[in-house]
């Protein structure tokens, strides 16, 4: 950008200059101006829903979040008629599923990225890369149906939280692969070559040199991936029935999560339940924003020094 004169300041002057020479017709100047206004308008229009959504959720949900019981209690024994109770069971369920999902998706995703960047050549690598793209685009409901077809229909297991995790793994893998891939590509080749020159085997070079160098970027990718899957509701609807109690068993029984808590409360017409809908929506957004922010901060401060 440095070589080009700042077009914003320049446009007016140039337009006048050209007009004096009689080269730039009025129509062109007007069209130029209209285009600029349209672009600004597009941006401002895009901001309206964002501000509106955030304001809605914040203003309707903040009251409950300020009560300490929101963070410590579950909804056990609390009907839609009653106020009180909290979202501890849902927050815990959401976090538990997220951790279980990450434990499965991260190794697969990182190894796939290593394969694509460090080893992959030819047809297989192209096929893997293509499939990662396809996986990126798979609707969460299809992932959930697939797991349902395997977990429930084929193996005859119950609908449990772990099934949800399996579906979420499918959604998280492509995010981890793509971000890790980007980071691995940023690791300078000189580092690898220096390591080879010292006689270090390739696998050790990757494990000890390449991965640590790209570490913060990989963490960023994982956090962004988690942020994406935490808000997913479709797999929960198919595979993870809601309960208002605290649950810690991923392999048996029901488990409450924030999305299903929203989904359960939204159909109620009584004020306490409506309040809880917005409060759990705000909690979920805060959780996701926190992960996004953490990811971006780590990515920003841990940036590769090349």
């Amino acid at each position, binding site marked *: 950008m440095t070589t*080009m004169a700042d077009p914003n300041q320049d446009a007016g002057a140039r337009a006048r200059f050209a007009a004096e020479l009689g080269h730039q017709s009025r129509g062109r100047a007007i069209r130029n101006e209209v*285009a600029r206004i349209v672009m600004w308008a597009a941006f401002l229009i895009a901001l309206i829903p964002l501000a509106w959504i955030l304001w809605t959720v914040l203003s309707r949900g903040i009251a409950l979040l300020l009560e300490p019981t929101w963070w410590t209690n579950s909804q056990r024994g609390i009907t839609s008629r009653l106020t009180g109770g909290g979202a501890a069971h849902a927050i815990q369920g959401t976090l538990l599923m997220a951790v279980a999902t990450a434990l499965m998706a991260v190794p697969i995703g990182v190894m796939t990225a290593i394969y694509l960047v460090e080893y992959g050549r030819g047809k297989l690598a192209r096929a893997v890369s293509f499939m990662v793209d396809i996986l990126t685009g798979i609707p969460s409901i299809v992932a959930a149906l697939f797991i349902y077809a395997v977990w429930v229909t084929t193996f005859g297991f119950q609908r449990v939280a772990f099934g949800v995790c399996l579906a979420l793994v499918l959604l998280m893998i492509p995010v981890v692969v793509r971000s890790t891939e980007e980071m691995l590509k940023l690791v300078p080749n000189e580092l690898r070559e220096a390591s080879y020159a010292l006689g270090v085997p390739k696998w050790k070079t990757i494990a000890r040199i390449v991965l640590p160098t790209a570490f913060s970027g990989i963490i960023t990718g994982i956090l962004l991936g988690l942020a994406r899957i935490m808000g997913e509701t*479709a797999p929960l*609807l198919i595979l993870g029935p809601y309960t208002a109690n605290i649950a810690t068993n991923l392999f048996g029984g029901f488990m409450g999560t924030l*999305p299903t808590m*929203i989904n359960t409360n939204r159909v109620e017409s009584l004020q306490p339940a409506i309040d809880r809908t917005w409060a759990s929506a705000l909690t979920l957004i805060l959780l996701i924003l926190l992960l996004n922010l953490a990811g971006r901060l780590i990515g920003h401060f841990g940036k590769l020094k090349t």
Partner: protein
Amino acid sequence: MPSITGVSARDDLPDPDGGGSLQGDSASATGRGRLGDRLFCGAARGAGVLVIALVTLIAVFLLSQALPALAKNGANFLTSTEWTVSGDNPRFGIANLLWVTIASSVIAMTIAVPVGVGVALFVTQYCPAWLSKPAAALIDLLAAVPSIVYGIWGAFVFGPHIVGLQTVLNKLLGWLPFFDNDTGSVGSSGTIFFVGIVLSIMVLPIVTALSREVFDQTPITHKEGALALGATKWEMIRTSVLPFGKPGVISASMLGLGRALGETVAVLIILSSLAADTKWSWSVFNGGETFASKIANNAAEFDSAQQTGAFIAAGLVLFILTFIVNAIARVVIERRKVFSE
């Protein structure tokens, strides 16, 4: 070939297919030799193969469980609008689901693509330098809002405000079958039209993010060339930035379309489903169900293989749709890569 096209430094980085500057270690790329190398390479390749296997398995499992139900189906799966999946004579077809899914996605894209491209142009070409990063981050925030929040916001907050616009559209364009009020639901917000609008907000960050990336890569020489020839800023954008970014925009739109086709919860919450014997209507001021919302709506009904199979068949069609759309996105952006090198 940065010297010819003036492509930015980004293009010098090795690409995922292993071209570019990683060629240096091709000697050890096969991973033969030491045990550690063999194991590690095997694990990496294994993970890659697993990804391929997963996508293949999705197709295989969906197909294998959909086929028995499809075989028993008494109606034409593609053209029927019926949906009776229990009992001895199941009759189900996807015509309605397909129409609602595609109509809502098309509405979403007609709004999201122009606005998204406008925002991308704003961020990369128009806005002051200090605003560029925060502006991009703000738009990305839209992607961080979970879809269920879009759903409840759309249904309870935004919805009531859309009825006025629907009434106006119906008055002005009511002679078109798409804007007809033959179902009498123009006064409700549970319409395909409104779902399309909410979907457009949801896919906007996707369209913007990728478009922004390609616009940013427009060779500076192209832009300066246009300006040097006396082009106004808009003419410069039209003649250099837009043509350069076109494959990226198409690709971005396809990814956005994929998301819109498969969106579940927001659609489920907003769209009011129709009674089983409702007359067919082309109107977008009508309720209905998309593939995804139909499946999610009936998750509790998955109690026999036949019923589940019918819904899995619907899921399979959705999978194929998104597969095609995403494959197109991928192919288009690949061709751009080849072209720009």
